[in-house]
């Protein structure tokens, strides 16, 4: 038989449980806009009577109320891991896209002033010298144009080089961020597993850890495995980054200048054993791609333009004679005098306009060599053609990257919307729940009142007949 007062305890348990429900709703509403917050739900379990029967004692009454079993964190692990993958890819594509965007700004083609026009001006300048071989003004103008073209190539290279430098510094700070985030995950692992072991709530800390994991995914495209004991292990390119409460750090190695990249590529390595680490996606992945492929490729193509310009012009120029009757002069030279002509070192080697070799016969005002130089712009594999093919290559790459980034952004946004829909707080729902809890609370209070009244009858009004 159940105790006389068991109804009171049932009502009390209901009051507790519904209060808990209202508190949880309060927490949900309070965090409706908190980044990374996962909605929580009170898991209520009916409290039954004694399940094991004993001699002379058997429970035949109803259950004895309700208890709060757990406060559940309603987040879908599968969606979460999809979200991390998509975000990793999204940052990768986005970083690449903005890098291409900046590189396109360097060349600012097509325009009336950029490199292609500077080359066209140079050829036209030779045309003017061919018309007036004896005119110092035309020669002076040509020298200026040649200097502008050489400056244009050097500026292009130095802009690429400074982009590379920025990306290199960025890579350093990204690696630091990865190490810090990994440390944070390890720390949270420790706290969460302790809380779990002692049965304390850890929902908010798990939210924090999910945020850190998302950061790691955006940085380096990590993969994640959740363990039963509350640990979450993080893997970078198949190797452990965070294992339980310990972290392995990574570092970035390689040249610090674009010129050194060829011999000493920029790469990730594990600090503990020095083995190479790999980050296929995330901003670090994009950064490494930028540092090792995109910028060096373009710099190489720009070098080819510079080399072609110098070779083609010098070959013809050496054959001609200046106004002073001297031939075998180079028009474009390596201004550093060390590495040979590249886009970084190309410069005009002639300072005296009369040294420009317009004539193919010494001591005359012949302009045929200048005319031949002016025609170099039409070469099918000359500097102009090389530059054009570089620009079109850059355009195609940039366009592809933009499209990929666009598609990936749509996918990622959809995935985010799904994640928010799954784990986010719906105020309507919370209000509905709130009403439910409130009504149940009121009902439990009413139950208590009626038991109280019943007991009142029993205690105060029973056995007073005839009094």
């Amino acid at each position: 038989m159940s105790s006389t007062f068991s109804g009171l305890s049932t009502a009390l348990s209901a009051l507790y449980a519904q209060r808990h429900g209202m508190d949880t709703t309060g927490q949900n509403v309070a965090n409706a806009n908190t980044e990374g917050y996962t909605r929580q739900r009170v898991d209520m379990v009916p409290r039954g009577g004694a399940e094991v029967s004993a001699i002379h004692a058997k429970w035949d009454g109803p259950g004895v109320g309700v208890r709060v079993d757990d406060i559940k964190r309603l987040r879908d692990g599968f969606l979460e891991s999809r979200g991390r993958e998509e975000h990793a890819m999204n940052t990768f594509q986005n970083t690449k896209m903005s890098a291409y965007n900046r590189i396109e700004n360097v060349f600012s083609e097509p325009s009336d002033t950029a490199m292609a026009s500077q080359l066209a001006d140079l050829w036209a300048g030779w045309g003017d010298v061919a018309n007036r071989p004896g005119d110092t003004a035309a020669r002076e103008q040509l020298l200026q144009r040649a200097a502008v073209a050489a400056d244009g190539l050097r500026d292009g290279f130095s802009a690429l080089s400074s982009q590379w430098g920025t990306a290199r510094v960025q890579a350093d700070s990204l690696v630091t961020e990865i190490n810090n985030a990994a440390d944070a995950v390890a720390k949270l692992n420790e706290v969460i597993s302790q809380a779990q072991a002692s049965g304390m709530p850890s929902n908010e800390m798990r939210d924090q850890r999910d945020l850190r994991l998302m950061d790691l995914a955006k940085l380096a495209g990590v993969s994640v495995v959740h363990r039963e004991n509350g640990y979450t292990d993080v893997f970078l390119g198949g190797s452990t980054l965070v294992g339980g409460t310990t972290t392995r750090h990574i570092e970035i190695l390689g040249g610090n200048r674009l010129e050194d990249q060829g011999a000493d590529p920029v790469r990730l390595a594990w600090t503990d054993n020095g083995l190479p680490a790999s980050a296929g996606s995330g901003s670090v992945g994009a950064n490494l791609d930028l540092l090792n492929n995109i910028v060096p490729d373009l710099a190489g193509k720009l070098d080819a333009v510079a080399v072609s310009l110098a070779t083609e012009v010098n070959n013809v120029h050496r054959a001609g004679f200046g106004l002073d009757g001297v031939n075998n002069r180079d028009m474009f030279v390596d201004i550093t005098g060390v590495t040979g002509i590249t886009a970084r070192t190309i410069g005009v080697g002639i300072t005296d306009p009369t040294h420009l070799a317009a004539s193919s016969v010494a001591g005359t005002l012949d302009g045929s060599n200048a005319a031949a130089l002016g025609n170099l712009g039409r070469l099918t594999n000359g500097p102009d053609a090389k530059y054009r093919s570089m620009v079109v290559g850059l355009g195609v790459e940039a366009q592809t990257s933009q499209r990929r980034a666009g598609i990936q952004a749509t996918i990622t946004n959809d995935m985010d919307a799904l994640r928010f829909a799954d784990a986010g707080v719906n105020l309507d729902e919370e209000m509905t729940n709130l009403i439910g809890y409130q009504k149940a609370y009121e009902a439990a209070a009413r139950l208590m009142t009626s038991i109280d009244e019943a007991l009142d009858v029993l205690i105060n009004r029973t056995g007073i007949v005839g009094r």
Partner: protein
Amino acid sequence: MMIRSTQQSIAARVTNNLQGNLTRLGRLENMLSSGKSITRPSDSPTGAVSALQLRSQIRSQEQYVRNGDDGVGWLGTLDTTMTSSLSHIRRARDLVLTGRTASMSGSATAREAIAVEVENIRDALIDLANTTYLDRPVFGGTTTGGLAYTPAGGYAGVPTGPGATVDRTIGEGTSVRVDVTGPEVFGVNGSGTQLFEVLTAIATNMRAGDAVALGTDLGNIDTAMENLQTQLANVGSKYNRVEQMRQSVSDRTLSLRTQLSDVEDIDLPKTIMEVQLQQTAYQAALSTTARVIQPSLVDFLR
């Protein structure tokens, strides 16, 4: 299954859509304000490369026009100079005819007068032969000096030969010679028919009254005159050729500019239309968003 939706997920979707709308609007407005549909290679890689090619072609066509202008200058100067030389030579020939009769009967004074006039004509012709275009003697070939002929009538320019001609490139692969050298026009020194030498001989023979020699001179001067006329015709036809080429290059430049504009300029009415549409879409999105996001159950609970 009912798809769950939360305020956050709605906000995320709405933000993305508004962002997309605004980006498209920004892109269109950028096109409209710059007037270009291609402002960076990635806008259209093929378009960008055509734009680059067209620009460089336009630039070289412009240079051809400049070259043509210069060529026309040379040929025009040659044409006028040679035409006026011709009238001087005709006068000299007349004088020879007069002098030949005078040498039989006329007085030494009269012959002397004719001889002096012939010498003057010779000097005037030498001056003409030293005519310059932009400080270069037009009959001197590629000479660096300022004179094609010495005051005595000797050729001071560069003899005709490979690498000694003045050429102008007036079209793709089309190069035209825009000069004639003194020896080609006035005859080679020492050949007997060199104009200035002939005139000197005439003056000498006139003073001597040598009618037979004057007869030979008359033949020589005719040869020189014919030669000059041939060269004049040559210069005239080249002038026409360069002039025509220049015209056609100008036309080609115009057509290249049109092509360039087709490639990289926007279609104004179409773009304005698109901007309007996009603006409407953006405003509609904004106003719907304002209405959708606002209400929640909270508004309706007591």
